[in-house]
Structure formats: structure tokens, C-alpha cells
């Protein structure tokens, strides 16, 4: 996973509420079994809409996305964050997120940031005005233009993994292999029916 330490650049504003993962990545493209090169399918069916900030065929966007509430709700499809990653989006800011989408982002070196509604509204305006956004994950700050930095929260474990580009599978196996073995031993005693193939 590519580490995420600082991200700097303009932001894309997409203020609609409840933008579900079907909108981010339409179902018919789920037949593709790769995870790279999906940027051109991101928001595929929305791109013709008047005022939509990405034209059809474009596969490059600013590194920051300012979104509306409940962004990424709906289907668990990880193609949604993969498609956004394909556009070059590393940081997504919204008042709230679909939970599976939120979790999927961290698995792909992307940072979803939850901020209050008033702040997100200001950020939409700043994005629309083309102001530069600067995210510093070490300091947990977001700085827009010349404004004072905004502090955001992120779980320590997830922050550390993003900063270092750590892969969950090897981390869990290396650090908790013994814990898992211990759990399994106890469960075989307590719930043996889960250990006989029925």
C-alpha cells in the first residue's frame, strides 16, 4: 500500500447527499476483475449531468474530494474506492460516510475525514474557488488557503497504517498469530460444533 503522509492540491466539490457506491461505480462495470485502471468508470453515469465537475472520459481529478453527507452508502463494492483512487483521489472529506466504504478507503491508502456540517460547507466553497488544500496526517491537520489549520480525528491504528503503508494481512498474522491460535483453542473447547464440518 502506498503510504499517505501529506496530500496537497486542489479539491473537487460534490455536495449531493447519499451518493451511493452505484453512482460512484455503476454495477455493470463490476464484471471487471481488476482493481487498477478503473478511474474512467468513476461516476460514469453522472458525468453528462449539467454542472457535474468531471467530463466523460476524464481519468484524472484533484487529490481531494469534498463530498456530501452519507457519501459511499449502499453496496460494499471496493471498486468505489478503487475507481476514486484511479482518478488520483487520496483524501475524501464529508459530514458522514457509508461505513463499509469508510473502512474500504483505509485498505487502499486513502483517508476519509469526517468533519461537522458547517466546516464541510465552507470546504465546498473553498474547493469551488480553487483554493489549495493541504492535509498533514502526522499532525492531523487540514489547511485550506491561508486559513488556520482544521484539526481532524482518525483512529491511531489506521493513521499509523496509512503513514507507513502497512498491509493488514501481514500485520495481523505477525502481531496476532498467537492470539488467534489461543482464541481458536478456546473456541474448540467452548463451541466444538463450529469445528466439525457439518
Amino acid at each position: 500500500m502506498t503510504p499517505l503522509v501529506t496530500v496537497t492540491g486542489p479539491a473537487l466539490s460534490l455536495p449531493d447527499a447519499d451518493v451511493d457506491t452505484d453512482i460512484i461505480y455503476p454495477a455493470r462495470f463490476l464484471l471487471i476483475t481488476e482493481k487498477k485502471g478503473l478511474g474512467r468508470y468513476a461516476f460514469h453515469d453522472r458525468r453528462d449531468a449539467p454542472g457535474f465537475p468531471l467530463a466523460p472520459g476524464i481519468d484524472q481529478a484533484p487529490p481531494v474530494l469534498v463530498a456530501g453527507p452519507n457519501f459511499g452508502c449502499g453496496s460494499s463494492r471496493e471498486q468505489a474506492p478503487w475507481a476514486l483512487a484511479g482518478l488520483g483521489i487520496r483524501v475524501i472529506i464529508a459530514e458522514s460516510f457509508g461505513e463499509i466504504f469508510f473502512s474500504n478507503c483505509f485498505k487502499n491508502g486513502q483517508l476519509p475525514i469526517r468533519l461537522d456540517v458547517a466546516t464541510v460547507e465552507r470546504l465546498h466553497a473553498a474547493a469551488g474557488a480553487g483554493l489549495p488544500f493541504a492535509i498533514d496526517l502526522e499532525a492531523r491537520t487540514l489547511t485550506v488557503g491561508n486559513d488556520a489549520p482544521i484539526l481532524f480525528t482518525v483512529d491511531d491504528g489506521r493513521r499509523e497504517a496509512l503513514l507507513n503503508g502497512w498491509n493488514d494481512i501481514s500485520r495481523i498474522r505477525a502481531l496476532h498469530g498467537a492470539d488467534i491460535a489461543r482464541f481458536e483453542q478456546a473456541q474448540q473447547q467452548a463451541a466444538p460444533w463450529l469445528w466439525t464440518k457439518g
Partner: protein
Amino acid sequence: MTMARTLYDKLWDAHVVAEGADGQTLLYVDRHLLHEVSTPQSFELLREDGLPVHRPATQLAVADHSVPTHDRDQPIADPQAAAQVALLEANCAQFGIEYLALDGPGQGIVHVIGPEQGFTLPGISFVCGDSHSATHGAFGTLAFGIGASECGIVMAAQALWQVKAKRMRVTFTGALQPGVTAKDMALAMIGQIGASGAVGYAIEFAGEAVRALSMEGRMTLCNMAIEAGSRTGLVAPDETTFAYLKGRPRVPQGADWDAALAYWRTLPSDTDASFDTEVTIAADAIAPHVTFGTSPDQVLPVTAAVPQGEAKLAKALAYMDLQPGEAMDGLAIDHAFIGSCTNGRIEDLRAAAAIASRGHVAAGVRALVVPGSGAVKRQAEAEGLDRIFIDAGFEWRDPGCSLCVAMNDDRLPAGARCASTSNRNFEGRQGAGARTHLMSPAMVAAAAIMGRIVDVRTMA
């Protein structure tokens, strides 16, 4: 004296492997159900690290999303879909995971076959790379949807870092009126709390109307918990649960059954356990519900009209081609879909057939019935439901996700208006530009026959 705990607390506590420093918990996963769409990249993660599957016996795979629901004795015509299904089969063979073949008796939608196979059990933790994994919570199972990367983690390590949700109890008081179903309960709840109303919560469904539901009804209710933002929906296991499970394949037998049953009886929330949020809904006041917009919370009783003066709905109404003030009852449809992991079970088909037997699909309407699994299909045929549907002008299909997700052959054209038993009315969900109205199986059957949305209670 231990603290009073909810069902969710008990399920969570029983699966803690390790606690992280920051509120994250490493949670053990007992069962993983795989399908063709969310796992190609998960297997790649294992290959990249040269890892085996940690406990292949806890994994079960089936193809459902991209499969055609017709001509199943032929090879899959769409080359991309054919390759995706073949890849799942090959991956399972390589990693030692049981795969239920497309032409075998066990095939069906993941969330229909899990319970049917007894792969879903009370008290276990259960994941699948599909947001509707909440369905399995109907058994008192800690079940939640995950992404493809997490599927890979579960295969390789059998554990996932998770954040514990807050507890929400949704209590349905009183008894449902005739013609009103679990689907209407789910839609009424989503309408009340909103599409993000349960983000960060695990919902436990309780109350007289929930206890009275069959397992099929409870699965419908839990299935749609995600449409309110919750990854988890739960119903405490009881005699209805145990009667459904007893004797199914993969369910413990003999002394194991007795031991499991004794444990399962300890799972319901303690009477003095407290919830972070309580929601109460009068079940006896719920009318059949219909969605009018492009989010499941844009929903109304069928007797109501599209809301007036709500500017935030303008975009959804433009997509749906509806006007504020327009009545839902009487709105013409041209497609009808009965099926999906929400409403593709035998009880759903019985309810739809009871209405279908009274008439014929209206001129200009195309109506599909897609059983949720091979077992559901065989059961329906044994009961003669297929004849009722076919005689009434419905198409009788093979099992799959079909028109719920439109990544298979079943897709609607732009502008089509569909009465659907599925779970999502998102833009483009049933095909680019297609318009979806969610409702119960009986309501869809009634709409198919009348050619317009009607209150099924008026057809009694």
C-alpha cells in the same frame, strides 16, 4: 455480578481476539461466504503474499450476482460474466474452498443459501463481501458486509480489525395488519430514521410484530438494516429460529445440537440491558409502503402522495419523472420484479402467487419471478407456484441476483418504471436511467396485474 448485556454485546464479546489501543478490536470470523464479484482481488492478495487460506472449512462460495437467470443449460453468453464465474471456481479449487456449482442443487443468492444450508448459525460471526450480509442477523448472528480487501484478510487470517457499534433497538409494537409484511416494516423504519439514521449503530429488532415473523420475514427485515446505514441487523434467536435450523445440512447434530442450543438460548439481550438509542414503531399502524425517490428513505404509505415543497427532493423526482402531489396509488408501471436477497424466499413467492392467481399480467408489463435459490425454486415448483405465475403471464427464471443489481443479463432500459421487491432504488440500480419503486412481493404482483401501483389490501 456481570453487567447486563445486549445480544450484540454478547456476540461481540464472544469473538474478541485482541483489543487495539485506539478502540479497534481484532474480531474472530467464524464463517465467510464468497461470491464471484467481491473476491477476485481478495484471492490476489493471498497470491501476492504466497499465503494459504487459514481455515478453508469455514468458507463457502457460490456465484450469484453476474449469472444469467435463463438458458442455464447453456454456457454463460456474456464472456466477462463467464470469466468471472470461472475465476471463482478456479480460485476455490486452488485454495481448497467448497464451491456450490452453478448447475448444482445448492446454487442461489449468497444470503438465501447461507441460512438454507445451515451455514448461518446463531452466535457466530459471519462476513461476506456484500452489504446485505446483515440478512443473517435474523438468526442472532453477528453478520456484516465487508470489502474485497477484508475478504482477503479473513481468508488469510480469520480475523478483522473492527470498531464496535453503538446499540439501537427498534421495537415494533402491536401486530401487523393483513396485507402488510416485513418489507413494509423495513421501509417504514427507513422512512422514519433515514438512509443514514443508523450509521454507527447495530440495530436489534424487537417487539411483538418481530417475534411473530417467520425466519423469512426476519431475514427481509435484517436485510434492509444496511439501507438505514447499519451494517448489522439482529433478531434474538428463539423457538422459530431453532425450528428453522434443525436438521438442515451443516447444522450441528446430536449432542452438538444440544450443546449449541443451550448456548443459543443464552444469547437474547438481558432484560435490563440498555441501548444507546431506542426507536418505537407502531406495527399495527403500518400500511403497505412504496418508495417514490432514489434512496430507500424516500418512501411513503401507498395511500400517500409525493411530498410537496421539499426542494431537496427535486433531483430524485426529476430522475423518477414524478411531480410533487402525485398519488402513488395508480402510478403506471411497465416492469415488475419478484426476487432478490430481500424477497426471493419461498414465503415471498407464496405471497406473490396468491395475488398472481387472481388475474393476468397487464398488457405492456413485463414481469419476472426469480427464485432466490435452487431449493426455493424446487419447493415452489412442488407447490405449483410456477404454474400460477406462468399462467398469469410472469416469466419463471433460474436463481440469481437478476434485476436487483443489473450486472447480469437482466437489465432495464432507460426510463423503464419497475415495481420491485429488491432493496435499492438507487439511480441506475436496475439499469442506467431505470426507475425503481420498492415494495413487498404481494404489492409487486398486484402492480404487475393492474399495470399500476395499487394498495394490495383493496384486492382482498
